[in-house]
């Protein structure tokens, strides 16, 4: 019941976002600020995660493929496909749910509770358009870029770990990388990352924007935002995989 009511409120909020900006320069500035916050802000964590995930998947794949009949290039293929299809988009986005999601929810929640949103409204500014929309758009632009970076770094991490552990020669890894490569996998991952980007930004923005009460409620709403967006993200992951693969 609660979810249905929230969905209704969410649609209402989304409808209110699209009005003519009071001053497009200020909206653009806000958009760039959010790109910086979301994109550059999560760059470090995405780099670390993707390198390690790639490295671990090489080691584990090698550990599971003990048969001498299977060529070593297969390791590279498996690492490549799991990183592109699942690890880079989904795992990074789950982490972004926490990093970006809680930031958006608590920032907007704080603005709501301390009446900053009311102050903007009084000035005659459409706060849904000025505060929420730029966050969603910035997510849609920067998160797919982060995911692409995560793919590259993940595979590179895998290659590094394979070499360092003496499991697979870099040249053999590289040969494996281009074998039976399907560009469709990358498109699929990109489609996923756009959907995830929307969930990661819109859900916490909704919870933050609609906080009622005080500091305690800001905490509650940002927890709820992270939980709901993680669940929605996994659900979307499943649905997209079922539909598109």
């Amino acid at each position, binding site marked *: 019941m609660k979810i249905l009511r929230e969905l209704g409120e969410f649609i209402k909020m989304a409808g209110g976002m699209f*009005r003519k900006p*009071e*001053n497009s320069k*200020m909206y653009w500035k806000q958009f760039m600020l959010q790109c910086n916050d979301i994109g550059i802000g999560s760059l470090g964590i995405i780099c670390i995660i993707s390198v390690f995930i790639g490295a671990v998947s090489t080691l584990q794949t090698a550990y599971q493929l003990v048969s001498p009949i299977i060529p070593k290039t297969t390791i590279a293929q498996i690492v490549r496909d799991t990183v592109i299809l699942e690890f880079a988009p989904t795992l990074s986005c789950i982490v972004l749910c926490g990093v970006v999601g809680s930031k958006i929810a608590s920032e907007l929640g*704080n*603005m709501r509770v*301390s*009446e*900053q949103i*009311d*102050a903007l*409204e*009084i*000035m*005659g*500014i459409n706060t849904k358009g000025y505060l929420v929309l730029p966050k969603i758009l910035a997510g849609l632009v920067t998160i797919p870029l982060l995911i692409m970076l995560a793919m590259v770094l993940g595979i590179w991490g895998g290659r590094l770990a394979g070499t360092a552990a003496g499991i697979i020669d870099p040249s053999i890894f590289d040969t494996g990388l281009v074998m039976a490569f399907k560009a469709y996998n990358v498109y699929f991952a990109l489609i996923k990352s756009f959907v995830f980007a929307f969930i990661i930004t819109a859900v916490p923005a909704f919870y933050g924007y609609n906080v009622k009460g005080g500091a305690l409620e800001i905490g509650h709403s940002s927890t709820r935002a992270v939980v709901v967006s993680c669940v929605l993200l996994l659900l979307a992951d499943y649905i997209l995989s079922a539909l598109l693969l």
Partner: protein
Amino acid sequence: MIEIKNLKKSFDDKAVLKGVDVVFDEGKCNLIIGSSGSGKTVLMKCMVGLIKPSSGSVLYDGDDFVSMNDVEKKNIREKIGMLFQGGALFDSQTVEQNVMFPLDMFTSDKYSKKKERVKQVLERVQLKEDAYRKFPSEISGGMQKRVALARAIVLNPKYLFCDEPNSGLDPQTSMVIDKLIQEITQEYNITTIINTHDMNSVMEIGDHITYMHQGEKEWEGNNKEIILSENQKLNDFIFASEFLKDAKRMRTIQETGEIPKDMPAGVKDAIEEKLNVDLDGDGHIGNPSKNKPSSKE
């Protein structure tokens, strides 16, 4: 001028405003007073459209705000400045950026011109230049209120709303803020509406006072009339303040020449000594035991 007519607001089935009619004149500090929970904030938020009233109308110079469309509302809002209870400064921006924000949003002036205007209003609220680059979290509550006031008036509003402008401030800083609001109101002929439960402000700047009690207008008048009012609920509210009780006692002494029974002994003695008369007719002036020279000295 703002006129509210039969304004009602209920949350679910709890009536918070039960049909309020008031006229707020321009160039005056219009105070709305009442104890916590009497509906002052809800009334103010209904007037500026942050809360939608259940029924009734809010007329800005004759035009009904409640029934306006979004564009018309926006036009009115550009003429409204509001000072929020907590200041509501944008905490990611410096003092200067906070005040410049409305200019950035609604004017196409050059940076130098905007900067000039910002400096002008910050000086108007007596903020020193070394605070301009600070963030709201780095300045005191009184300074935050002043910055918020500067931001509220930077676009020369026709209507100024202040929700508890001196809550959380010491009496001296409160007075400074009150005086500022009063001066600005008179200087620019603004229709100013102030929510407060601070009796200091009421006596100091109350050109027009509306007393709210449980969602209804209970009394209306100015700061000269208020302490003589016979309204029991209003009296209960204002004479909770000790200094107003004193004011009323002084008036009783002045008018009847009798000392009120509830006068604290210390105050009575002090007045007797000052006026050099035996007000309570006990045969001596002031406190005789205190005036006797102490044997130990």
